[in-house]
């Protein structure tokens, strides 16, 4: 089975059922299917071939959903780029995967203009709205409305060219090297993960899922894919920026499923929720960062009829574990056990399985495990190691856990320095590289400090170059111009020197301890 069949099967079964609600727009399955088909034909007409990468650089929108399915229908590999990504990183990603197509909208054209003419592989741009760009001779631009709102292309699906072991998506994630890595996912990987997750969430076509998470984030992307797989409805909102608007949507659209990250529950719990009951709401899921037990306790008290799923996963296999809702009062700090059709276990540093109570690295087996990082064999070899069957690769997560006597897992820590803020993974190195580009910066280290709302808040610790006067404001301004919103540090601390390890390298661990001791 291929991922676009999620849409195609539901469109065949319930063509007139509402599939997608986005702002004032309400689309049926037939409308989504026909729009995606027309765009797929346009992609094919412009020379997109099986396996070609096509990037979606859009806010959460109808066009983003159509684009994802259209790329799959054309046999391509989609990648969703966070809409707050700035030009430098946009160019890096498009160049790294040699994207042949880009689907975007007018507000992003300033950043697009800065990088696209220099990309030799990028040939076609589809823009959702009026656009004018100065492009290289091999490039051209197509207005999306000319395809979606006309019968220039057929509304039926183009013939299939892929099989389920072909790539379906690249999801770029922060790497410890500071450069984003493309996680390679096949159709089979995605179908397997989506099947396991919708099984334990007991999803049906009656479900109405509200997604406020960015589609560049696998947790947000899967809400689209899973809603279409189960034949339910997806309410797609741009973000959680205006909490009351989201509360209003939960009520007005009779939402049954609400996926969140701890930052969202932190903001929600600052509001007076006691007036609301959300009678339709069936479940809330949390992943991406540990759900504070206090949030769980308060949500349980406010909404006793809502099932709370505490979960854990990583982009490299999408999801690893979930805590069955009937366990949440018994062991609120556990992230549960493996999901259906998956095996998980803990190993020591020699690769031997460890028993209950002993800390070990989590290893994952299953058909949802990624194929590797795009063109990074060494990075891939650190995460994927041979399994018991010929050709099988198991995922070594780099996350340390212990299990209780009944096999429930408890997160202990990470083996690397990755910061989790607002549920997003952030590489300190990526921010440090941006900091080093400021002329007055001699040394820089980026660390995560505990924060009640963000999980971890990003702090930049800087040694200024002699003779330079640097302010926090200058540093943050530079960061805001070069980094996605969630990567911009919350605070900057200036110090005379940074602690080093025996090799003379700045030690982030010691910087963190040092900064903590000072505050």
């Amino acid at each position: 089975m291929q991922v676009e069949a999620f849409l195609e099967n539901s469109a065949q079964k319930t063509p007139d059922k509402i599939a997608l609600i986005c702002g004032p727009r309400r689309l049926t399955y037939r409308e989504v299917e026909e729009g995606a088909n027309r765009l797929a034909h346009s992609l094919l007409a412009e020379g997109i071939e099986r396996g070609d990468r096509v990037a979606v650089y859009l806010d959460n929108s109808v066009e983003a959903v159509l684009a994802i399915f259209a790329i799959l229908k054309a046999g391509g590999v989609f990648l969703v780029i966070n809409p707050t990504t700035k030009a430098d990183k946009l160019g890096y990603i498009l160049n790294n995967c040699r994207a042949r197509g880009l689907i975007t909208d007018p507000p992003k054209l300033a950043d697009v203009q800065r990088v696209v003419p220099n990309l030799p592989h990028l040939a076609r741009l589809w823009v959702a709205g009026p656009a004018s760009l100065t492009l290289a001779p091999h490039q051209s631009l197509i207005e999306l409305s000319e395809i979606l709102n006309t019968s220039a292309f057929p509304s039926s699906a183009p013939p299939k060219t892929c099989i389920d072991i072909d790539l379906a998506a690249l999801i770029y994630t922060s790497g410890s090297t500071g450069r984003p890595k493309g996680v390679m996912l096949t159709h089979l990987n995605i179908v397997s993960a989506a099947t396991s997750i919708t099984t334990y969430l007991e999803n049906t076509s009656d479900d109405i899922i509200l997604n406020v998470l960015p589609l560049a984030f696998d947790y947000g992307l899967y809400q689209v894919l899973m809603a279409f797989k189960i034949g339910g409805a997806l309410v797609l909102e741009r973000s959680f920026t205006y909490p009351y608007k989201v509360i209003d949507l939960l009520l007005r659209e009779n939402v049954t499923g609400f996926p969140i990250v701890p930052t969202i529950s932190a903001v929600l719990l600052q509001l007076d929720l006691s007036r609301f009951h959300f009678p339709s709401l069936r479940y809330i899921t949390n992943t991406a960062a540990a759900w504070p037990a206090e949030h769980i306790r308060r949500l349980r008290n406010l909404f006793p009829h809502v099932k709370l799923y505490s979960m854990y996963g990583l982009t490299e296999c999408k999801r690893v574990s979930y805590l069955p809702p009937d366990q949440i009062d018994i062991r609120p700090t556990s992230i549960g056990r493996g999901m259906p059709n998956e095996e998980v276990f803990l190993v020591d540093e020699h690769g031997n399985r460890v028993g209950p109570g002993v800390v070990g690295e989590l290893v994952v087996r299953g058909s949802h495990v990624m194929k590797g990082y795009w063109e990074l064999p060494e990075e891939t070899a650190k995460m994927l190691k041979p399994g018991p069957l010929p050709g099988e690769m198991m995922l070594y997560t780099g996350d340390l856990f212990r299990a209780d006597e009944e096999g429930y897992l408890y997160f202990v820590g990470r083996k690397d320095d990755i910061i989790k803020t607002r549920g997003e993974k952030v590489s300190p190195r990526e921010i440090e590289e941006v900091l080093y580009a400021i002329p007055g910066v001699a040394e820089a280290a980026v660390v995560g400090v505990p924060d009640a709302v963000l999980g971890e808040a990003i702090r930049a610790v800087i040694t200024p170059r002699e003779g330079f006067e640097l302010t926090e404001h200058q540093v943050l301004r530079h960061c805001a111009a070069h980094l996605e919103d969630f990567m911009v540090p919350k605070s900057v601390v200036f110090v005379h020197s940074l602690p080093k390890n025996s090799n003379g390298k700045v030690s982030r661990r010691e910087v963190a301890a040092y900064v903590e001791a000072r505050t």
Partner: protein
Amino acid sequence: MRQELRQFIIDNFLFGQNNASFSDQDSFLEKGIIDSTGVLELVEFLQNRYGIYVRDQDLIPENLDSIDNLVAFIQRQTKAA
């Protein structure tokens, strides 16, 4: 008031970036200027600076998502008080 609000947005959410221009009608959301924690900071500023009370149900884009919307919202709240 307009200038003061603009300065608050620029100082706190754009860190004084002068190239990030936005008009009085521009949506903070669409321009990527603000996020949910930013909204709570903005509300705190409105309450302290203009002495208005912002209720939970006021946390909607119609009240807060542009300079124009903010000015109209503050004027409505001041009149109501």
